[in-house]
C-alpha cells in the first residue's frame, strides 16, 4: 500500500514538473531550465519550513514565487535566442542553479543536530510532514489536490484568450506579430508561469523525500520535464499526466521484474511510443473520440 501511495506521490510531483514545461512548450520554446526552477522551489520551501518554522503552504508559495521571478529575469535575455541556442542557454542556467546548491551552506542548530543545506552533502532532515503528523496518505492527497488545481487552471487558460496567444506564438512567430502579439512579453510570461509551477513541484518534492541534494536537480530531471509533455502531446494538459503514468508507472515500475534489461527497454519503448503516436499519447483524435463518447452518452441520458 505504501508503495502504491509512494508511486502516486511521485506521479503527482512529476506531472506538476511536466506541466511547468508544457506551458513553455506551447510557445514553441524548448527549455532545459525546469529542473533549476524545481530545485529553487525545493530548497527555499524546505528552508522556510525547517529553519524558519513556517507552514508548508506559504513556504511553497514563496519558493514558487522566487522561482517565477528568477524565470522572469532569466527569460528576458534567454528568450532572445531560439531553438538549439535556447537549449544551451537553459541547460547552462539549470547547471548554474545545481552548482549553486552544491556550494550553498546554511546550517543552524535545532536541538542537538545541525539542519539546513550543507553543500554537496545536501539538505537532510526536512521533517515537516512527520513532525506534524501527516501520514503518507495525507501527503498523497495534498499533492493531488495541488496537481488537480494546477491542471484545472491550465485547462481553463488553454481555452481562454491567453492560451490562444501562447499557441499562436508557438505556431508562427511572424504571423503572431502581424496580428499585434508581443513576442517577448508572451514568452517571458509563459517562462515565469512555468518557473512558478516547477517551484511548486519542487516545494512538495523536498518535503516528501525529506532529503534533497544538488544531484536531484540535474539535466536528467530537466529532460524528463520536457519528455512528459512532448510524449503526452500538447493538445491538452491530460497528455502530460498520461505520459507520466506511462513512464513512471508502467515503464519504470512495471518493468522492474526485468532487472537490468529494464533500462534498455525503457528507452526503446519511448521511441516506439513516439513512432506509433507521433503527435503524443493524447492527440487531437483521442480528444475527438473521447469528446464524442461523452456527448452521445449525454444525448442518451437526455432522451
Amino acid at each position: 500500500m505504501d508503495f502504491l501511495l509512494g508511486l502516486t506521490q511521485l506521479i503527482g510531483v512529476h506531472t506538476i514538473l511536466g506541466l511547468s514545461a508544457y506551458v513553455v512548450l506551447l510557445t514553441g520554446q524548448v527549455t532545459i531550465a525546469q529542473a533549476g526552477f524545481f530545485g529553487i522551489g525545493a530548497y527555499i520551501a524546505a528552508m522556510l519550513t525547517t529553519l524558519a518554522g513556517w507552514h508548508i503552504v506559504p513556504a511553497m508559495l514563496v519558493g514558487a514565487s522566487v522561482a517565477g521571478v528568477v524565470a522572469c529575469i532569466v527569460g528576458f535575455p534567454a528568450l532572445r535566442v531560439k531553438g538549439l541556442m535556447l537549449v544551451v542557454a537553459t541547460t547552462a542556467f539549470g547547471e548554474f542553479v545545481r552548482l549553486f546548491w552544491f556550494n550553498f551552506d546554511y546550517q543552524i542548530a535545532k536541538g542537538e543536530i545541525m539542519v539546513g543545506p550543507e553543500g554537496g552533502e545536501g539538505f537532510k532532515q526536512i521533517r515537516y510532514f512527520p513532525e506534524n503528523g501527516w501520514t503518507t496518505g495525507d501527503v498523497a492527497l495534498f499533492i493531488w489536490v495541488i496537481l488537480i488545481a494546477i491542471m484545472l487552471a491550465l485547462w481553463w487558460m488553454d481555452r481562454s484568450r491567453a492560451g490562444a496567444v501562447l499557441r499562436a506564438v508557438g505556431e508562427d512567430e511572424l504571423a503572431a506579430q502581424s496580428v499585434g502579439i508581443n513576442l517577448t512579453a508572451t514568452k517571458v510570461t509563459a517562462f515565469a508561469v512555468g518557473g512558478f509551477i516547477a517551484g511548486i513541484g519542487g516545494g512538495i518534492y523536498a518535503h516528501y523525500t525529506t532529503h534533497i541534494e544538488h544531484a536531484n536537480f540535474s539535466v536528467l530531471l530537466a529532460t524528463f520535464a520536457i519528455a512528459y509533455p512532448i510524449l503526452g502531446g500538447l493538445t491538452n494538459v491530460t497528455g502530460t499526466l498520461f505520459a507520466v503514468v506511462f513512464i513512471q508507472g508502467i515503464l519504470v515500475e512495471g518493468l522492474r521484474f526485468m532487472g537490468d534489461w529494464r533500462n534498455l527497454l525503457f528507452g526503446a519503448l519511448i521511441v516506439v511510443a513516439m513512432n506509433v503516436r507521433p503527435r503524443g499519447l493524447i492527440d487531437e483524435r483521442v480528444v475527438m473520440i473521447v469528446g464524442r463518447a461523452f456527448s452521445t452518452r449525454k444525448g442518451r441520458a437526455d432522451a
Partner: protein
Amino acid sequence: MLEVQDVVTAYGKIEALKGVTLRVGEGQITCLLGPNGAGKTTLMLTITGILKPRRGSVRFHDKDITGQAPGGIVRAGIALVPENRLVFPEMTVAENLRAGAYSRTGSAASEIANDMEAMYNRFPRLRERSTQMAGTLSGGEQQMLSVARALMARPKLLLMDEPSLGLAPMIVEEIFQIVRDLHKDGTSIFLVEQNAHMALQVAHHFYLLEQGRVTFDGTPGEMAEDEVIQRAYLGTRQTA
C-alpha cells in the same frame, strides 16, 4: 495616409532597404513592384514594426510610428497579410479569425462575433470550414483566411504581401476581386505584387523597388509606357 521617409533597414551588415521614400494615399490602392530580393517584404515588416529601421521614419496619419511595437501599429490601424499567408496551421479557422482581433481589447465580445459573421459572409468558404484546422485548407482558402484575419483588426490600411504567390490563375482572379471589393468598402490598400498585369488592373499608383531603392514612381499609365518596366515586368514586345 502613410509616409515612408528615407528608411534604411539592415540585416546585420547588409542593408536591404537603402533609403526608401514613398507614400500611400488614403482611399487608394498603391502597388509596390519589384524583383525577388528587392526588399519588398523587408519594407512591409519595417512598416508593421516587426523590423526596426536603422534610419528614416514611418508616419501614419501624420503620427510618427517608427520603431513602435507591432501591437501598437496594429492598434493604430495598419494590418498585414503576410507573405506566404502564414495562417496558424493547427488552429481552427474560427480561432485564426479570433486571433486577428487580438489587439482589439476595447471591443465587446459581441462586436467581434459580428465581425466574424461579416467575414463568413464575405468568404462563405471560410464559414463551411470554420471548425477545420487552417493547415488543411487549400492555398486559396488560406489566403482568404489570412486576409480575413488581418481584417479582423479593423484596419484603415491593409498591407498585402504578394497575395497571389503560388496560386492558380483562377484563384488569383478571385484574390484581386477581393482587393477591389475591399477598396470599394473604403479600405486603403498597399499591395506588394510580382504579377504586374493583374496589378495594372486595380492599382492607382505604382512604385518599383529594386535593390533596396525606389526606381520608379508613377501612375498606371506612366508605368505601362515605361520601357524598362515593359520589358522586365509586362513582357510586352518592343515596338521600335
